[in-house]
């Protein structure tokens, strides 16, 4: 009887994504919030997504030689010991790869992605393994824990590190390393250059490989802390300029150092106590408009300084950006020198590094932004921060594309996975080919998409007439064949000890143009889960059915849909309503739901000068650079797994593995889905793979639309039959007049989730 209630229950009042606690099977009184199920607390060493299985490599685990593990140390001592070790500095990991400088070039990446694609394994699988080996022989991993800095040889998943024999180990007194980076361009098999930043603001360059030379090639910057007193938060070498590096600090300053300038001159002959900085560029305030109220906030702008003196000295330039800590910064890529920074004031700022011009900026939903990552093609930036949200920002269009909600705490690191790009989730037969053609089409489509936005007004997303919207969606539908094509894979780790993987599909990118919509991976926002909506009003159907219905359309004509979707007119009228690409949106805007949201926007002032200039950026709630929570799609992660005891601080995507590390200094290497796993997974999901309806996409859609559904079908309830049943019932509840297609979606949902479930149990 409880199962019966589950159906309407899940559809009923669920407004939250993180409703991971299943109703207990006994006669529960009230659901206990504070006691997450076992599922929640267990640390995952292995998890599966549709690509295959990610698994920690036991022998590749790295930590300090005598790890302060809770397995050995009585409770409480860990924290105490960490405290003594100065654990306040975040654990970070950096790699030195001697032969893999070109690793993230897109064409390489495409090849890689297809090589571990289940269906391409025969052609590409083995060559890649060989190249991996070669590369792996030459990597060094460096990490800091407390006041210590360790370097070990690293071979990816083949790492078998003797923790007692590091390549180098350094223990600092009085100050602790807070971040570090290898200079890839200046390192060779025998020499290396490691730049280290410290909690007290100093910088050091060392060569961990140089064991012989009597005079160690160590250089110190800001030794006397005249230049900067606050901790170094991030370090980068200027792309293409191996002698120039940048350091960001808690104070909100970013310094540019040139290694060719003697370090001694800068480290203070007493004279540099108050450096005669010369203001170069100054943009003092960005008009930050709060909801309903206008108030320009000083300190949200930026200033750059250079020396008045003729003789070059270090640091050559100083950027003072925003207010509060610059948590991270990064360059867009090797040639386009866009510099993006995220600060504690909640702003992502994108500068033209050469001209020191602020190109655009984005504001978090609230709180500081802690991390950022450029997409491999430099078109998107993903950020994470204190609002627990992943935010994906379109650099060219200067707007937020979507937000991702799954983390239970702050997000400490986001990364794009450059090795999983632009491929189709499904359709095994044409996969190899389609991944290449898709690349073309995506870029073509992106170009066309970018054009109107530059000319149109900033209200584009809000007040766009319905006709424009439908035309656009039609256009995009004809250019890109597959809405569910994965364009980007993003990973995120957070203070909640969870690792999340996210797929940004074409559909999200395209539909991001529209104010509101649902799609397969988009979770219904609170409004959609409102009891009113769920009570089965007929007018809500257009809004809610797309996510449900569209995949079923696809599943019926997978080949047709693959390259050239049938003109909408040819489709049976019944499905028209479900095809949101062509029809759903236009109808959707006229639905009652849209009117409520437009009225909400209407009460705000119009962001008229959002695009006026890069200086007068208006970051108000409801503007493209800080949309309201219901203004942009909220996506659900592909997977969200607890993988650590302590908060996670590091996430790195490497060719053959994924690396995570936590604040306790445990570094985990995860093997990526490989041939072996694919076989296994095929076996497990044989039922799923057998039937054509069991494509993976629909599953996401069905679960996503209902929030609760996902958790259930993930196997949290521990009852397969219940998940199957409830999903089915949901379908019927939602759309009383929906017929077989949506039913089948429901069925395939559970079929797809079976492998994941099985793996969790098997472990």
């Amino acid at each position, binding site marked *: 009887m*409880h199962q019966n*209630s589950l159906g309407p*229950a899940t559809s009923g*009042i669920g*407004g*939250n994504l*993180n*409703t991971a*606690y299943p109703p207990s099977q006994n*006669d*529960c*009184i*009230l*659901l206990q*919030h*504070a006691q*997450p199920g076992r599922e929640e607390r267990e640390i995952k060493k292995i998890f599966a997504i549709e690509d295959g299985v990610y698994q920690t490599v036991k022998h590749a685990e790295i930590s300090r030689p005598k790890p302060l593990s*809770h397995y050995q140390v*009585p*409770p*409480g*001592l860990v*924290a105490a010991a*960490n405290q003594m070790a100065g654990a*306040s500095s975040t654990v970070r990991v950096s790699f030195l790869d001697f032969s893999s400088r070109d690793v993230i070039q897109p064409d390489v990446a495409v090849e890689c992605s297809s090589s571990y694609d289940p269906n391409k394994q025969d052609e590409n699988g083995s060559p890649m393994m060989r190249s991996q080996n070669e590369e792996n022989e030459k990597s060094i991993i460096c990490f800091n824990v407390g006041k210590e800095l360790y370097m070990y040889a690293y071979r990816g998943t083949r790492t078998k590190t003797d923790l007692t024999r590091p390549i180098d180990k350094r223990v600092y007194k009085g100050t602790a390393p807070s971040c570090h980076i290898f200079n890839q361009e200046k390192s060779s098999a025998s020499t290396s250059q490691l730049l280290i930043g410290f909690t007290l603001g100093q910088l050091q360059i060392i060569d961990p490989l140089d064991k012989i030379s009597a005079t160690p090639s160590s250089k110190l910057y800001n030794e006397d802390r005249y230049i900067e007193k*606050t*901790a170094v938060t991030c370090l980068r070498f200027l792309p293409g300029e191996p002698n120039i590096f940048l350091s960001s600090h*808690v104070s909100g300053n970013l310094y540019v150092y040139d290694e060719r300038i003697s370090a001694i001159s800068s480290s203070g002959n007493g004279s540099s106590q108050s450096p005669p900085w010369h203001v170069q560029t100054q943009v003092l305030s960005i008009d930050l408009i*709060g*909801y*309903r*109220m206008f*108030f320009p906030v000083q300190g949200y702008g930026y200033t750059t300084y250079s020396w008045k003196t003729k003789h070059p000295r270090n640091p050559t330039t100083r950027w003072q950006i925003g207010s*509060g800590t610059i948590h991270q910064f990064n360059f867009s890529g090797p040639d386009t020198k866009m510099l993006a920074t995220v600060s*504690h004031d*909640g702003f992502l700022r994108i500068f033209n590094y050469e001209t020191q011009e602020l190109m655009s900026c984005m504001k978090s939903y*609230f*709180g*500081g932004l802690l991390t950022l990552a450029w997409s491999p093609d430099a078109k998107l930036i993903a950020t994470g921060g*204190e*609002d*627990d949200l992943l935010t994906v920002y379109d650099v060219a269009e200067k707007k937020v594309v979507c937000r991702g909600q799954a983390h*239970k*705490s*702050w997000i400490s690191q986001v990364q794009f996975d450059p090795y999983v790009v632009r491929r189709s989730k499904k359709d095994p037969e044409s996969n190899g080919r389609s991944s290449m053609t898709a690349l073309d089409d995506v870029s073509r489509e992106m170009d066309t998409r970018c054009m109107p936005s530059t000319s149109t007004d900033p209200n584009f997303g809000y007040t766009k007439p319905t006709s424009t919207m439908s035309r656009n969606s039609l256009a995009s539908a004809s250019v890109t064949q597959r809405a569910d094509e994965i364009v980007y894979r993003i990973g995120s780790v957070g*203070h*909640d000890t969870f690792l999340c993987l996210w797929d940004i599909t074409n559909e999200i990118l395209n539909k991001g143009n529209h104010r509101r919509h649902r799609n397969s991976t988009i979770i219904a926002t*609170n409004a959609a889960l*409102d*009891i*009113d909506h769920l*009570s089965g009003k007929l007018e809500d159907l257009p809004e809610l059915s797309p996510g449900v219905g569209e995949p079923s359309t696809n599943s019926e004509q997978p080949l047709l849909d693959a390259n050239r979707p049938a003109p909408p007119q040819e489709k049976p009228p019944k499905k028209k309503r479900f095809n949101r690409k062509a029809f759903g949106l236009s109808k959707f805007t006229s639905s009652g739901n849209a009117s409520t949201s437009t009225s909400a926007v209407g009460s705000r002032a119009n962001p008229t000068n959002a695009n006026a200039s890069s200086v007068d950026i208006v970051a108000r*709630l409801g503007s493209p650079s800080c949309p*309201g*929570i219901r203004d942009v799609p909220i996506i659900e992660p592909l997977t969200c797994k607890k993988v650590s*005891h*302590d*908060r996670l601080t590091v996430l790195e995507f490497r060719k053959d593995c994924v690396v995570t590390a936590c*604040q*306790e200094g445990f570094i985990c290497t995860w093997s990526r889905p490989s041939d072996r796993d694919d076989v296994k997974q095929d076996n497990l999901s044989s039922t799923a793979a057998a039937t054509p309806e069991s494509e993976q996409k629909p599953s996401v859609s069905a679960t996503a639309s209902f929030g609760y559904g996902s958790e259930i079908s993930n196997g949290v309830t521990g009852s397969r039959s219940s998940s199957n049943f409830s999903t089915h019932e949901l379908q019927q509840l939602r759309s009383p007049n929906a017929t077989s297609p949506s039913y089948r979606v429901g069925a395939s949902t559970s079929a797809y989730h079976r492998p994941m479930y099985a793996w969790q149990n098997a472990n």
Partner: protein
Amino acid sequence: MGANGSSQLEREISRTESGTLTNEHYYGLVNFGNTCYCNSVIQALFFCRPFREKMLNYRQTLKKSGTSKETLMTCLADLFHSIANQKRRVGTIAPKRFITKLKKENESFDNYVQQDAHEFFNYLLNSISEALITDKKAEREKSSRHGTIKKGNVTVNMSPATAGISKDERERNGTEGSDSRPESTWIHEIFEGILTNETKCLSCDTKSCKDENFLDLSIDVEQNTSITHCLRVFSETETLCGDQKYYCETCSSKQEAQKRMRIKKPPQLLALHLKRFKYVDSLNRHTKLSYRVVFPLELRLFNVSDDAEEADQIYDLVATVVHCGATPNRGHYITLVKSNSFWLVFDDDIVEKLDVSSMEEFSGMSTEATAQMTSNQSAPQKNSESAYILFYQARNYVAEDSNHSHRPKNSTHSV
């Protein structure tokens, strides 16, 4: 501390403030033997600007009217006044009269035992609003008596405030024991928000909403989460079944139902109490959950109801009461406070500047080992300084701003 300490703080403040002509006073409060629970809350409230201003106004009008009756509220107003009117900007002050009055008024505080800061906070708010209401009543009585004598036909219609606070289980304190709506005071203006209790009968799908007022929210905490997440969990859907079945009016019978609690009207000053003190049956005592719960300096609520006004109101953290120590009974309270552009720590009589970047250290302990308090309480619990009450103030809120005309009438309605 002492003269050296405070003068150093003075220097630091003047350095950071350079130019701004604010006349803020930073005074530590002397501890009269385990009164840090009191000091910490007072400091937090002092730096909740709307509260302080109302308090100082109250004292002004009181002085004008000439009444000299001493209540807990007048003691607090006097304390605020004396802090705000000190010559030096930094120093210490002894809240002796207030403490004496507090101990006289409420015997549960009349000892030297460590008290719960949140309980004190509730007590203080309630006693202030009670004092205000009695003042109002007295005034009204006076004027009506006056009126009847003079004109004879003036009858002040004391309409009973729209009643109907839900009487069912009441987890949240703040509005405890009120069968009729208490009169609105400026305490309510500042702290009061409205929760809407949505219940849906699972057999007939009838939805009903009941509104409930709150002065603060008590939030369950989980390890390694954020306050945002805890608020989300707070508003998660509960299923009422078994003994807790819900009486459905439509079905005229007890039915299984789903219930969730969301914020309908966000308060101007959102006080979040983290339920860190949990009663453990097996130990027969309260233990402290030192879970790491991070809190941002800026906050928006995710758990607002769909019809909420200002659902995307942004809040700024203005003060935090922090509990230090491993158990509820031992330990210490300190307060982190934002004043102008910087943060300060008030540790009884010691006042120090705090670097914003170190705020995270007050989130609690992150390793799971520390969470297993029940198994081994002898383990050293260093650094369990963890935020206990968070004060978030709505941005752009001005205390003088009295256009609360749109404040919703507290009403019970069924859909």
